[in-house]
């Protein structure tokens, strides 16, 4: 595992998620949280999921998405805050995109 990317902003409003994706490595993981949950419906997410060679894990914090009434995708793993704490240490570093 390499870098854990915390995505906290909507890609419909700012380009933080796009910047995150531009430096994403094959072994990285993404966590969508706060307004980052909205990105589940963004075209950038489609293209990320369709990347044929992708080994990237995409997670979303369950209650953050539920609070926003955002339906999730089969390709995205639902996690709780305790999982986020664990991911912090199973990856080599954390970058927060906010």
């Amino acid at each position, binding site marked *: 595992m390499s870098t854990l990317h*915390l995505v*906290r902003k909507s890609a419909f409003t700012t380009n933080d998620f796009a910047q995150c994706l531009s430096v994403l490595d094959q072994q990285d993981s993404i966590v969508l*949280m*706060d307004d980052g949950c909205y990105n589940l419906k963004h075209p950038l997410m489609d293209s990320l999921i369709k990347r044929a060679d992708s080994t990237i894990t995409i997670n979303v914090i369950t209650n*953050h998405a539920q609070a926003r009434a955002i339906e999730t995708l089969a390709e995205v793993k639902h996690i709780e*805050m*305790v999982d*986020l*704490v*664990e991911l*912090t*240490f199973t990856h080599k*570093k*954390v970058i*927060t995109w*906010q």
Partner: protein
Amino acid sequence: MKTLAVVVTTPPYSHLTITALTYVETALAAGIKVIGVFFYQDGAMHANENISIASDEYQAIAHWQRLNQQYQLPLHICITAAEMRGIACDSIDNEQINQAFTVSGLGELVELTTKATRLVQF
């Protein structure tokens, strides 16, 4: 041992701060050693003793205080950031500064960063 340092840049009235708090609390409850939280930029406003948030809203500051007491979690505010935001830091026994917070310089951030296994920014 797994150690964690956290940087908080959002003000106490931002809902994004609730996420940071929940994360730190969960880490502490899981037995992770959180060596300190550094409040930078608008995060420094947390130490303003006069902040008054409507009682039916989430009380972020009281929540940080509780973590400070329960886990001896060090809470540092950046002095430059604080003074720009109206917290006078010059006097001793300052009634304007919430006692759960320590007024620090950016050197403290260097200290936390070099000691921590992981640094997480909120």
